[in-house]
């Protein structure tokens, strides 16, 4: 079963629109949403959570309509937004008391375990937390009510590299259970590359690409050549390019390039940056 299915989703604002957006997240998988600022990542997440009303299209979570079953579905969804918005005066202990009456399956023991593992104080007010600590508390809350789907919007930003690595391990461990899934957006593409099974590129409200990460890395590669050499390739082979006085760096579909060409492996960040530049 798919954890999340988005079909033909549209949402328009005065200066931005999400257009005919389609995305499927299978259960047991982690999908990374990559996009520039204002590409529509947070809007997509808010639409999924019914925090913003869609213009058209459908969003189904475990096969159920996200609006008709919003409350029931949110019992099984853990969310971390880029701004963890707990009231400043509350302590982690008070937040636990509130969450006990918020989620039917709130697990105080798990929460305390996360607080301890993430080195978070129990009795300190939220206003005294650093940005990193706030994100960690948001993650602890999101994971302490036995969720089946985690929706994470820039959840690793503000964390130092060591803690970020620990948190990514937590997310990977979470999806060991095949009924668990994660949709994560981040600017830190290397984080997503580490843990994601699927990668989706968003650019100006449009989905540029949504593919299995391993398949992307297999299918595409980087070539370095001159502008004249590049012209000899099929136009369809080139997915993105960057030109400089020293030559051209281009992302190409490996199967569309003659075997005599030297095609190097790429990373997801390179693929994203060059594809977005091509789309502009």
């Amino acid at each position, binding site marked *: 079963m798919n954890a999340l299915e988005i079909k033909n989703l549209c949402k328009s604002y005065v200066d931005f629109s999400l257009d005919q957006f389609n995305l499927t997240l299978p259960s047991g998988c982690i999908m990374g949403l990559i996009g520039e600022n204002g590409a529509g990542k947070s809007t997509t997440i808010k639409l999924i959570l019914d*925090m913003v009303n869609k213009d058209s299209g459908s969003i189904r979570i475990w096969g159920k309509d996200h609006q008709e079953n919003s409350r029931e579905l949110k019992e099984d969804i853990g969310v971390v937004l880029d701004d963890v*918005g707990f009231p400043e005066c509350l302590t982690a202990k008070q937040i636990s008391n*509130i969450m006990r*009456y918020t989620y039917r399956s709130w697990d105080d023991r798990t929460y305390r375990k996360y607080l301890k593992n993430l080195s978070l104080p129990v009795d300190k007010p939220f206003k005294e937390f650093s940005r990193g600590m706030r994100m960690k508390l948001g993650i602890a809350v999101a994971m302490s009510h036995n969720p089946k789907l985690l929706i994470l919007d820039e959840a690793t930003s503000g964390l130092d590299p060591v803690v970020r690595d620990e948190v990514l391990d937590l997310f990977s461990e979470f999806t060991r259970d095949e009924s668990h899934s994660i949709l994560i957006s981040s600017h830190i593409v290397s984080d997503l590359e580490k843990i994601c099974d699927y990668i989706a590129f968003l650019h100006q409200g449009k989905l540029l690409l949504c593919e299995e990460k391993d398949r992307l890395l297999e299918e595409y590669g980087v070539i370095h050549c001159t502008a004249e050499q590049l012209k000899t390739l099929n136009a369809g082979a080139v997915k993105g390019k960057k030109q400089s006085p020293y030559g051209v760096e281009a992302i190409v579909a490996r199967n569309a390039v003659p075997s005599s060409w030297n095609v190097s492996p790429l990373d997801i960040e390179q693929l994203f940056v060059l594809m977005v530049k091509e789309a502009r």
Partner: protein
Amino acid sequence: MKGLLLKDLYMTVKYCRAYFFIAIVFALASVWGNSWFFLAYPIIMASVIPVNLISYDEKSKWSVYVGTFPYSKKEIVSVKYIITLIFLGLAILLSGITQTVHMLIQGTFDLEFLIVLLVLLPVVGVICPSFMLPAIFKYGVEKGRLVFYGVMIFLCALLAVLGAIGSVNDGLPGLFPSLQLWIVPLILGIGVVLLISSWLLSIRFYSTKEG
């Protein structure tokens, strides 16, 4: 909804302690005074608490974050009305006690007057939140405050008029003989209709609001 209520109670204890202190001081002042202002002040203070809580919610971005939790929009709105009623209840209890003590000290205890007072005070208390909460749910705290100032000016003028009538008629109890008995339930009815209309309007506004 219990979780939301508990969160608001934690915030009230932290942020609105001064209000309780001021309300008690004014209520005590009404024991020795004979003023509508002192009597109604705790009620006005109580009616402002939910607005302050929404203001803190906006500042901390809880007003957006709450959309990620399993609460309906109706519950998110309703909890502010429940908080209003809880603190209005406490303020009315306080005013009722102090007015009783006042009448006992003065030797003018009048049960009928006390009952009428306890019926009318909640109506005074719901006027401010009934206008402010829908405005805040529609336009946010900053713009909603304009409505707050308008309502406060109206209430102060009302209290001044009532105070003047009361002093002409030899104190607060003097005001009530001038009220026909059938007017009291009518005023109470208007208060109830006002509060329910405000609640439904707030739910409607909040449901179309985008976080």
